[in-house]
């Protein structure tokens, strides 16, 4: 297959948006014929060369060779089908293949339609519009001078006048406020807000509402969710294990950035390279979670590098779609077919991103940060008072240092071979310093076997160092979700090199470690279903021959993610004249029962070494302090001095009490959360072009760079990810601002000015209002990339306020409302569907931010076969149940049913345009899903309690809560009729009305005096009808 045969793409693209249109099966010149010319003809009959005076890139010249409607009489067709090599085209090359010839024949027979506009690589060609930076266009003149309220309207109106159409009248105030509220904060107005607005007859009444809503903390939730689609946000790893991950700090960062109206250029820079900003804050590091939202595959047997590459492709894709608005992933495998992006250029951009660790760090909420600051401050105070009380402490410390520096044993690092059958599927990757780093699948129980030959004689002890690594959870040194681990047993066997005899187990005289914690049962996440007593404790637990005990090194929050070491001293030195084969068994069996979830308690990165010095023990000094001691004391920084002191003070007997105070202080250190981030590598990786995008086929190596068809990199800046981030939002970028304003427009009007919002490239749809798109893009940048400024402009325009009523004539003329002669009417996004029900019923919990919520869902969803083991889904109780839908925990493999059915993307890939379907499963969901039912019940109860005395008043009240307007006479009648029939039915029926009216029929809620359960049940039925109306979940 040499090129993609494209069928009726125009009609398919339109069908995607909502409706089918019958398309003629017509050959498309641009997509089907021109590629053939380009491939086989242009080299002789194109821009550079015109053999025989013919050029097939010029319509007028080529026309001489074509008899439109009659292929058989066209020179062009006769030449490509000629039988003689002397006459057949392409000359001296392989004939065109059958399908190409058929296409050309059909095309000519159908009239050889050749549009004037888009001709790539031709004499008439000009640069694709989207690749030329936008400039501010003149406002068009219009004859109706009264309608426009801001420049947006001038562009819309000019086009309408050109089409001889008139804009629709303004929508009524109630509709307008509901529209505005749903658009800006994703929630309907409360009845009180509506009433206040209706009463407000002042000139700026509407603008006041705009201000109020733009300042609402819910604004960030609404527009943050739109960005989170693009950022493919989810709370789990994806792929088959789909383990949960903590990334909600990133989600909250997006919400807060929106609320603070962080300029969009800054917004992008922090997400792509926040970690590289000078003195990067926690927030700026959290922002890089954007690129880390890629999926992670830890299936047994995978090559971690394969899926790191997949994640890199995903990061390129998300930058292309969400920032540049250009499809770039085609160039992963080959030069882009339609856009001028070469494969090499793709990998040069890739090289910018290929510089980081897959970091996972501890993060703290503002309250936790304050707590930490207090602990640091108090620690300093206590230390100062220690020093104050001991005036000669400096001399004493120097004395201690002299002693501590003497007589350290010499350790020789071993580089053992990993026995892969013993790894249980984990990958142990050898690092340059001789350590092994655990990657990929993490079995909860395995006994790792390592072998190495050594010529060293008289081996007296073995050292196991546990090291930090940026790729480990919270930096390690373990692989548990807290970056800790446990050493179940440690054994060494020795045999002469080459010997066939069974190796001899080395007897240890003792084991020492720099951390020895008291015996402690395992955390609940490591429960292995055996119900055996399983504990961690001092280093002796690693040589006691018991599977239940292990050496633990989890020193608690704030202290646990540090390097550790243990030394195992042999009872007798080990020697073999011809060298010794050492076999290590590093048993790690303190994980939980399910290796497919976050339950491992393995070592993360570790290194083995040996010594010949007698009586070697584990250095009690932390590795960092030991390192500082090797620096001359006058060359040390203050922080280094402080680090030495912080250790030394713990050894001073006089300070025992003060030390204990500090220990107690640190026990209050907050746990914090974790967040996936980017962390720069000291040495960037080398980037290669990958043949067909296959990580096993690296080709030529490339340096970081940007594609030639876009704007150049800023001069004199370092070539790194930060510069790349700045380049993405450079004023000269032709697509960045256009892409964002176009997507913003899409969210208001249902379709972008370019309907293919993910792609402004050559394959994109022609803009409906090109000048407006450019005007908005320039205005956006001129207003310092303020997103709120663009929102304000749009919602205060006359076009935004148009009524969305459709006449049959208008519908026939413009079914997709591209011309905007009317307002747009469409169903709201999935999350808002739920939020409306919660809000109308009064159940909504408006809290902003925090960990994701396990909203009600059928339990079986989270059981096998949906995953290996049951996934955690502890249903939220109380007010948490009623958080906004965007806080619902998102497992990629088990999308939350209510959200999925209403087209919310699951976060596998970046999504900048949701589909909007209308299905029977949606009907079943809003009718029967538990939270919708709870909403109906709550609305019924509220209506009875607060909706007035008569049923008619109450109907009005309930309708207002759902639709933000009063019911019509006919609507009231219909609802009252249902109410009466159902009240009778529930009163006279055999069933228990509480079954419908209460969440738990055995514990019915209190109802006002005089209200019967049957009435409440009937009101529940009425509420359910209201919550299910098309209008309720539609923005009109």
């Amino acid at each position, binding site marked *: *297959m040499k090129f993609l045969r494209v069928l009726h793409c125009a009609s398919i693209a339109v069908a995607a948006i909502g409706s089918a249109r019958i398309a003629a099966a017509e050959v498309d010149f641009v997509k089907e014929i021109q590629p053939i010319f380009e491939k086989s003809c242009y080299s002789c009959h194109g821009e550079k060369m015109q053999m025989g005076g013919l050029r097939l890139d010029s319509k007028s010249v080529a026309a001489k060779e074509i008899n439109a409607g009659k292929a058989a009489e066209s020179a062009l067709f006769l030449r490509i089908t000629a039988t003689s090599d002397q006459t057949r085209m392409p000359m001296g090359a392989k004939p065109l293949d059958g399908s190409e010839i058929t296409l050309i024949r059909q095309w000519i027979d159908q009239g050889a339609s050749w549009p004037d506009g888009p001709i790539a690589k031709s004499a008439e060609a000009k640069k694709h519009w989207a690749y030329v930076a936008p400039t501010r266009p003149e406002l068009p003149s219009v004859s109706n001078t009264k309608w426009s309220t801001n420049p947006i309207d001038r562009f819309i109106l000019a086009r309408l006048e050109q089409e001889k159409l008139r804009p629709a009248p303004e929508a009524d105030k109630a509709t307008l406020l509901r529209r505005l509220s749903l658009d800006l904060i994703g929630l309907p107005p409360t009845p009180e807000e509506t009433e206040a607005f209706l009463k407000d007859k002042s000139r700026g009444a509407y603008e006041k509402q705009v201000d109020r809503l733009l300042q609402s903390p819910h604004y960030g939730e609404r527009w943050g969710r739109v960005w989170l689609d693009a950022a493919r946000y989810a709370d789990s790893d994806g792929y088959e294990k789909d383990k949960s991950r903590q990334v909600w700090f990133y989600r909250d960062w997006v919400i807060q950035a929106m609320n603070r109206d962080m300029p969009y250029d800054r917004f992008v820079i922090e997400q792509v390279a926040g970690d590289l900003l000078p003195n990067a804050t926690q927030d700026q590091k959290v922002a890089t979670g954007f690129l880390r939202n890629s999926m992670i595959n830890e299936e047994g047997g995978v090559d971690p590098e394969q899926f790191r590459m997949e994640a890199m492709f995903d990061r390129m894709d998300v930058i292309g779609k969400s920032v540049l608005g250009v499809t770039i992933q*085609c160039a992963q495998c080959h030069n882009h077919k339609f856009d001028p992006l070469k494969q090499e250029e793709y990998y040069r951009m890739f090289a910018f991103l290929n510089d980081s660790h897959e970091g996972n760090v501890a993060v703290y909420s503002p309250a936790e940060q304050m707590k930490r600051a207090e602990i640091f401050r108090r620690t300093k105070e206590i230390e100062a008072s220690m020093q104050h009380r001991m005036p000669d402490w400096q001399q004493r410390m120097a004395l201690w240092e002299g002693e501590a520096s003497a007589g350290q044993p010499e350790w020789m690092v071993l580089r053992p071979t990993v026995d892969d059958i013993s790894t249980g599927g984990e990958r142990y990757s050898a690092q340059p310093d001789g350590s092994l780093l655990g990657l990929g699948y993490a079995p909860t129980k395995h006994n790792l076997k390592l072998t190495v030959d050594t010529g060293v004689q008289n081996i007296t002890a073995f050292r196991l160092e546990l090291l930090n690594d940026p790729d480990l959870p919270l930096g390690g040194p373990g692989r548990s979700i807290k970056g800790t681990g446990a050493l179940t047993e440690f054994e060494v066997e020795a045999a002469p090199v080459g010997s066939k005899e069974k190796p001899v187990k080395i007897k240890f005289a003792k084991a020492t470690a720099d951390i020895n914690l008291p015996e402690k049962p395992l955390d609940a996440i490591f429960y292995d279903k055996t119900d055996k007593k399983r504990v961690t404790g001092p280093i002796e637990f690693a040589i006691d021959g018991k599977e239940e005990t292990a050496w633990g090194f989890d020193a608690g929050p704030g202290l646990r993610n540090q390097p550790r070491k243990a030394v195992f001293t042999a009872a007798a030195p080990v020697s073999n004249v011809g060298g010794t084969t050492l076999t290590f068994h590093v048993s790690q069996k303190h994980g939980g029962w399910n290796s497919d979830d976050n339950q491992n308690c393995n070592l993360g990165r570790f290194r083995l070494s040996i010594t010949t010095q007698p009586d070697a023990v584990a250095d009690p000094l932390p590795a960092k302090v030991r390192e500082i001691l090797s620096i001359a004391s006058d060359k040390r920084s203050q922080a280094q001095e402080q680090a030495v002191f912080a250790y030394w003070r713990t050894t001073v007997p006089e300070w025992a009490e003060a030390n204990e105070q500090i220990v107690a202080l640190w026990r209050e250190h907050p746990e914090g959360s974790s967040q996936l981030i980017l962390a720069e590598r000291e040495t960037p990786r080398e980037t290669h072009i990958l043949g067909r995008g296959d990580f096993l086929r690296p080709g030529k190596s490339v340096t970081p760079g940007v594609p030639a068809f876009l704007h150049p990199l800023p001069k004199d800046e370092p070539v790194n990810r930060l510069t790349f981030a700045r380049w993405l939002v450079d004023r000269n970028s032709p697509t960045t601002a256009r892409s964002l304003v176009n997507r913003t427009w899409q969210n208001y009007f249902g379709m972008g000015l370019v309907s293919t919002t*993910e792609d402004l490239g050559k394959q994109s749809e022609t803009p409906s209002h090109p000048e407006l798109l450019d005007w908005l893009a320039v205005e956006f940048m001129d207003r310092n990339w303020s997103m709120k400024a663009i929102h304000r402009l749009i919602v205060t325009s006359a076009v935004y306020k148009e009524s969305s009523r459709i006449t049959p004539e208008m519908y026939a003329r413009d079914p997709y409302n591209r011309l905007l002669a009317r307002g747009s009417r469409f169903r709201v996004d999935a999350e808002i569907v739920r939020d409306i029900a919660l809000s109308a019923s009064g159940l909504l919990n408006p809290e902003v931010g925090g960990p994701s919520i396990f909203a009600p869902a059928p339990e079986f969803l989270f059981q096998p076969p*949906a*995953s290996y083991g049951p996934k955690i889904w502890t249903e939220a109780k109380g007010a948490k149940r009623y958080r906004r839908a965007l806080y619902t925990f998102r497992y990629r493999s088990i999308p939350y049913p209510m959200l999925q059915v209403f087209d919310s993307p699951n976060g596998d890939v970046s999504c900048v345009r949701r589909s909007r379907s209308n299905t029977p499963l949606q009907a079943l969901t809003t009718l029967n899903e538990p939270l919708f039912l709870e909403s109906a019940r709550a609305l019924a109860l509220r209506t009875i309690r607060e909706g007035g005395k008569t049923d008619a008043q109450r109907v009005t009240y309930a309708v207002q809560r759902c639709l933000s307007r009063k019911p019509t006479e006919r609507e009231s009648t219909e609802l009252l009729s*249902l109410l009466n029939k159902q009240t009778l039915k529930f009163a006279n029926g055999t069933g228990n009305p509480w079954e419908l009216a209460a969440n738990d029929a055995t514990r019915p809620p209190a109802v006002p005096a005089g209200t019967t359960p049957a009435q409440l049940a009937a009101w529940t039925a009425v509420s359910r009808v209201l919550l*299910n109306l*098309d209008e309720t979940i539609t923005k009109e």
Partner: protein
Amino acid sequence: MNIEQELRLSLTRRHFFGLGSIGIGTAALASIIAPDAFGVTNPAVSGALPGLPHFAPKAKRVIFLHQSGGPSQMDLFDYKPGLKKLQGEELPASVRMGQRITGMTSSQSSLPLASSVFDFKQYGQSGTWLSELLPHHGKIVDDIAIIKTINTDAINHDPAITFIQSGSQQPGRPSMGSWVSYGLGSQNQELPSFVVLISQQSGLNTDQPLFSRLWGNGFLPSKYQGVNFRSSGDPVLFLSDPDGIDRTTRRRMLDAMAELNKMRLQQFGDPEIETRISQYEMAYKMQTSVPDLMDLSKEPESTFKLYGPDSRKPGTYAANCLLARKLAERNVRFIQLYKRGWDQHNDLPRDLALQCQSVDQPSAALIQDLKQRGLLDETLVVWGGEFGRTVYCQGKLTQTSYGRDHHPRCFTMWMAGGGIKGGITMGETDDFCYNIVRDPMHVHDLQATILHCLGVDHKRLTYRFQGRDFRLTDVSGDVTKQLLA
């Protein structure tokens, strides 16, 4: 008004909203009741793309019996008697040619050949070789086409199953059933056009998970996603009315809703409102049609005998095969069935035998059943996993026990029914069942062939997304003409 009158009235209203009466509509509604251009006797088809099918289809629907985990081809279909002599010897480097193997065996010091412990014999007029584990398949060998040379690009489960279901190893593309629903629309007004059945009780607890993206719509509108019919509880999520709501109440509520929606429709003229009304009606119909489908109590004794005793137990592979037949009778377009438990990394002889006990008879029964009902000719049945297994042993090789790792380079599937030639075996692998010698069939070829049987040119069923026209077979795939009847 009494309840009887009420019901009668609601029936009339239902008639009004019945699909036949809806004139204008959007794609979601689009009940264009068009006779098939190729004169195939067909009930109303709704929602097909213009111009589809591209040519006269042989099959109206597909039943895909996915065997998740990777069935061992040389223990079931691809008879390699020569391996007996080579038992325990190293896989020759000339055969492996340095190809990629999984991380589970990549550093095994040795890759010893393991011949199958199972006996093979010939069946049917075609004389097809089958393992002793598949005696019931012996009854259908003359109806099916066995393909020994399927090959895939992926070597780990997740990418491989994603690949065979969606044509791409990476998540995000529509599944085969979604493509088919999108292109060909629905033939049924009461059931979804793409139904998924997952078999439980595989006996092995280390089975790979099956998640909804395998039957997901990818970038297609979500109405094309597969609907998972469950064997316990609500067969479709949120299908049942809550406690306290009976049919009358439900009907009345639907009618009130429809009345109110109609008032809005009159005022706003938005066809989407009309669609919404009809979707609520469809949901109402599903409340009876789905339980009716799932109810096996009316099946005669002979059915259960045919499918085996497991077929009485909801959620088993056997019961799902029976349901697949019922779905085929109801003209559901794409029936995706999953059976897990084929991932025999160790102790294959024991586990594979157990697995086959639950799969052999129902698979064969489905073919026989479809045939006796005259449905086989118009139903395409596909059987197979996401990859095959290695000829070399994973773990310890003994006289009676061995394990096999994933093998993507050749494995066996079979196809039968609409459009497929029965009683043939296609393709040949080398003596080690490692490489293909003759007639390879790539996963994209398989997908192209399935679409072909449905009257669809796989190169022309495309969807524009991110500036590119995507298709199920990505940029490759050829119809395997040899298999076509």
